[in-house]
């Protein structure tokens, strides 16, 4: 069985159009044949299972409730090598962490479809009595075993599997009863792969989106979600939002009508609140413009995705502020980290503490909204003025086809991603943090951001350089990667230190 990289057998040229039914049937058959557990997938049985779950275990329904009730749910990450450990983890996150949504993060071999390596990691972990994989090997355990994870808790569960190869993991996870699935074409291709082309990334996710839509057609609404964090490293809101819009259009074309949007926090209260509002707004704007009037798009805010400080007390502040920012921004959900973030995957206990810190922070800020505040309105307009030219140019380059447009836009650098490992990303764009704590563009690469907007960015960065008495150069952008991770003595020295 060749599982390393699933060959793309599609002979049809790339387009955003919905995969034809018969073609999809063939694709699924070949996909499921790649590992023995694929044979366990029976979509009609799976649909029946989903339907048998109470609504509060179905993430699509739960997200709709959160939005209707204007609540901000909490969701951790978490995956370990064996199913016994994974059950324990999920129970702790549920009971001690009070998580509203339970995660199953897959390991990095699974993500890259190296199922034999995952098998070895699973077995070594069983021997060692500790997890040597950074996640749960979903495919190796298969549908029947993984369903035990769904049955061990009374809350909805989501698969977190950062990869541009979701095809088999998604089949297994959704059939097992997971009602949420994170991952999207552009976002994951640029952050999780080195050689994979944007085109293949799109094709792989068209499969995922089509599969989710198939469940919907059979009466099971799933929560598909976009991983807006990309490389996690100083992603300005406008880049995240561009990918949200494009991936949402790709998903909608496959028939998805419930599509969550994620945004990594910049850690600036005004910028983050603006990002959340504008993300929702612009995704809807472009979806409706393309005729998709009924796509539900709740926004999830993510705790800081860049480098964390070593000190657990500093991390606690980032965790709590993460809750504050999600609440103030009016997110429907916040994905949490923990005080162990800088060092390693947290224990269940520490992960649960991060959840409770966040939950309390959300509670405390639940009433704060910035609507009508000048600085907030200015920031929203700025983001709109960055996103629209990029998205418009992309759609134009595809002659209206968002899949083709995306591929061409990446080729031309019209879309660019900072710090991406992927060769097909130009990698000229370079963000940096400005004097007021906002993430700005030091270098926009070839993205069509208007000149006056760039002037504003440059000016605000120049002020930081001046304040710190350093040249306005790439070094400032590199320093911006470390900013938040610095020890307190450097971040916030006694004001009397001369």
């Amino acid at each position, binding site marked *: 069985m060749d599982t390393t990289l699933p060959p793309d057998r599609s002979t049809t040229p790339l387009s955003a159009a919905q995969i034809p039914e018969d073609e999809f049937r063939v694709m699924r058959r070949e996909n499921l044949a790649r590992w023995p557990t694929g044979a366990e997938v029976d979509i009609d049985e799976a649909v029946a299972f989903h339907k048998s779950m109470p609504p509060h275990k179905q993430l699509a329904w739960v997200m709709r409730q959160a939005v209707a009730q204007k609540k901000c749910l909490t969701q951790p990450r978490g995956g370990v090598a064996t199913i016994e450990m994974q059950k324990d983890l999920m129970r702790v996150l549920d009971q001690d962490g009070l998580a509203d949504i339970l995660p199953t993060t897959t390991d990095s071999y699974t993500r890259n479809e190296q199922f034999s390596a995952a098998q070895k*990691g699973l077995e070594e972990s069983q021997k060692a009595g500790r*997890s040597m994989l950074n996640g749960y090997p979903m495919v190796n355990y298969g549908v029947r075993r993984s369903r035990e994870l769904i049955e061990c808790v009374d809350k909805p569960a989501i698969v977190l599997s950062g990869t541009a190869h979701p095809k088999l993991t998604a089949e297994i996870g959704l059939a097992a009863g997971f009602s949420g699935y994170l991952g999207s074409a552009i976002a994951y291709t640029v952050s999780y792969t080195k050689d994979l082309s944007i085109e293949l990334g799109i094709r792989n996710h068209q499969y995922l989106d089509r599969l989710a839509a198939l469940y919907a057609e059979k009466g099971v609404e799933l929560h598909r979600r976009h991983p807006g964090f990309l490389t996690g490293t100083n992603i300005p809101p406008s880049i995240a939002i561009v990918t949200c819009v494009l991936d949402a259009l790709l998903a909608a074309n496959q028939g998805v009508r419930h599509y969550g949007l994620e945004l990594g926090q910049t850690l600036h209260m005004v910028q983050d609140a603006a990002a959340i509002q504008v993300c929702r707004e612009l995704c809807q704007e472009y979806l409706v413009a393309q005729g998709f009037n009924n796509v539900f798009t709740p926004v999830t805010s993510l705790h800081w995705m860049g480098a964390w400080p070593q000190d657990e007390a500093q991390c606690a502040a980032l965790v709590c502020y993460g809750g504050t920012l999600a609440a103030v921004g009016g997110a429907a959900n916040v994905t949490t980290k923990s005080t162990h973030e800088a060092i390693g995957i947290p224990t269940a206990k520490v992960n649960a503490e991060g959840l409770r810190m966040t939950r309390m922070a959300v509670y405390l800020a639940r009433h704060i909204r910035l609507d009508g505040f000048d600085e907030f309105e200015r920031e929203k307009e700025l983001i709109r003025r960055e996103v629209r030219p990029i998205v418009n140019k992309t759609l134009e380059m595809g002659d209206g086809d968002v899949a083709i447009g995306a591929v061409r836009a990446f080729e031309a650098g019209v879309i660019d991603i900072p710090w991406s490992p992927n060769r097909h990303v130009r990698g000229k764009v370079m963000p940096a943090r400005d004097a007021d704590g906002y993430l700005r563009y030091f270098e926009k690469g070839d993205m069509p951001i208007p000149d006056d907007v760039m002037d504003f960015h440059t000016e605000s960065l120049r002020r930081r350089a001046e304040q710190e008495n350093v040249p306005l150069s790439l070094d400032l952008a590199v320093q911006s990667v470390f900013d938040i991770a610095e020890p307190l003595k450097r971040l916030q020295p006694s004001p009397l230190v001369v």
Partner: protein
Amino acid sequence: MTGETLITGVIGSDTHIVGNRILSMALEKAGFSVIALGALTPADDFIKAAIETDADAILVSSLYGQGELDCQGFRDLCIEAGLNEILLYVGGNLVVGKHPWPGVERRFLDMGFDRAFPPATRTDDVVEALTRDFEARRGRAGKAEP
């Protein structure tokens, strides 16, 4: 000064490129000749590149926790390929979870790495360690500074 050839890269299925890229930039700036293999680099590719470029050291990054699995037998691969003397560093978030550093370091030294570096290692410290180790080797080999 320096000038030695270094191979850098992130081993296994690991996409964490940021630290590795910043490290590579800093090493170049410090005068080394750096061959950067980037993220998601199989162990074999490090060896191949080292042979091709007659490298003096390999710097393996691993952040995602599975480094313990990916790095098993790395020294043996080098020896099999005839790279008997090559300096091997490893750095990052080397194991899954938060564990006291000395134990983690031991595991990687036992695997045959010359040095292992904990999370949040500053690039200056890496440059310093390399410089010291290369000097020591030149000394041992009786080679004078050119």
